[in-house]
């Protein structure tokens, strides 16, 4: 622009022809060619890094209406089931296998990487690497139904030793306290185990989220409510109000004490 102003304002008789030719050759041909080549090479060198493979741990995540089914598949060791929360080791490239059994969802954790659609019948791949420990909020980024907006997942990045200890601890059933025995009985009596699994109990349902370490999660209903006894009770009592069109039926007939007992039991699963 400065050159344009100079050229139009200049009162001199115009540029020398050789100078003009040289200006066109260097400014119009050589300079853009060199700049574009440098930018292209820089971009191409970055591309293989973006598509690097994971370093061993694969986490299968299925987006379902309206929650996340999470299965850790360590290189050596049995798979670990969880839901609505993803834990990853800091500094390690973790591969995600993204699927969906119902409609199109999209796995998006903006702090860690771009969004990748979860398409029924396909397995999409994403590799994420957390540089710092912390909690990174993720969401479903493709409209998937009435509770699309109530479908969040935190990615919790843990230091590698902590993560390894956590993952190996996951293969053991959660500890059970005597004071929550009644809640457990109510949980099983009311048929919750038909849809939910709690490792080490008769609850082996696979329709809904795995509740084995429910007490470890910060939220319930995939980021819908805080994980507190009152809120768990509310979620069970008026599920369809809290989370419209969710598959789980509401249990308005359960007495409040029973709801709180079940909530106490679930909250103790750590």
């Amino acid at each position, binding site marked *: 622009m400065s050159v344009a102003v100079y050229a139009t304002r200049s009162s001199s008789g115009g540029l020398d022809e050789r100078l003009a030719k040289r200006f066109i050759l260097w400014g119009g*041909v050589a300079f853009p*060619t060199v700049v*574009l*080549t440098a930018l*292209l*090479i820089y971009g*191409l*060198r970055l*591309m*293989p890094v973006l*598509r690097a*493979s*994971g370093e*061993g741990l*694969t986490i299968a995540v299925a987006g379902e209406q309206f929650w996340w089914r999470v299965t850790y598949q360590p290189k050596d060791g049995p798979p670990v089931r969880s839901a609505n929360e993803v834990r990853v080791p800091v500094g390690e490239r973790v*591969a995600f*296998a993204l699927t969906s059994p119902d409609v199109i969802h999209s796995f998006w954790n903006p702090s860690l990487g771009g969004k990748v659609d979860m398409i029924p019948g396909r*397995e999409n*791949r994403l590799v994420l690497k957390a540089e710092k420990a912390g909690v990174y909020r993720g969401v479903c980024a493709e409209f998937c139904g009435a509770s699309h907006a109530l479908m969040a997942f935190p990615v919790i990045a843990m230091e590698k030793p902590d993560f390894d200890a956590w993952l190996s601890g996951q293969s053991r059933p959660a500890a059970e306290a005597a004071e929550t025995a009644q809640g457990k009985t109510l949980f099983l009596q009311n048929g919750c185990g038909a849809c939910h699994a709690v490792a080490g109990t008769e609850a082996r349902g696979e329709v809904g989220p795995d509740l084995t370490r429910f007490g470890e999660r910060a939220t319930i209903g995939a980021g819908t409510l805080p994980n507190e006894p009152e809120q768990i009770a509310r979620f069970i009592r008026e599920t369809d109000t809290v989370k419209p069109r969710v598959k789980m039926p509401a249990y308005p007939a359960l007495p409040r004490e029973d709801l709180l007992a079940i909530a106490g039991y679930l909250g103790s699963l750590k």
Partner: protein
Amino acid sequence: MIASTRANLVTLITAPTVWALHFLVCYVTASAYCAKTMADARVFTGTSWPDITVARAVIAAATVLALGIIALCLRQAWGHWRSGDVDPPFDEPSFEGRQGFLGFSTILLCGLSIIGVIFVALPAIFIGDCR
């Protein structure tokens, strides 16, 4: 390419045509080769990605061939441009004027095509597998 002493439209479009064909060869080679070799490759097998040396060699050969043809074209166009004693803008209805115009246009298109061919081939240098 066909006319050695007289510039014509065929010499003018040779370089961009070679560029277009080179583009086609590179992309068809890479996509066909990756589609074949990746058919059995699982996404999560980690480091065992199919080797694409063959595809890279084909792209390298196509690039050398394309640059060679464009270089010949450029040499010829240079001759056409320099043959007459006419200066730009080559708008006189004369043989020299036409030679100068077509020769100079061909030189510019050759330059553009050389850059185009190199840019198309660059990914094969930096990207070593089908991801």
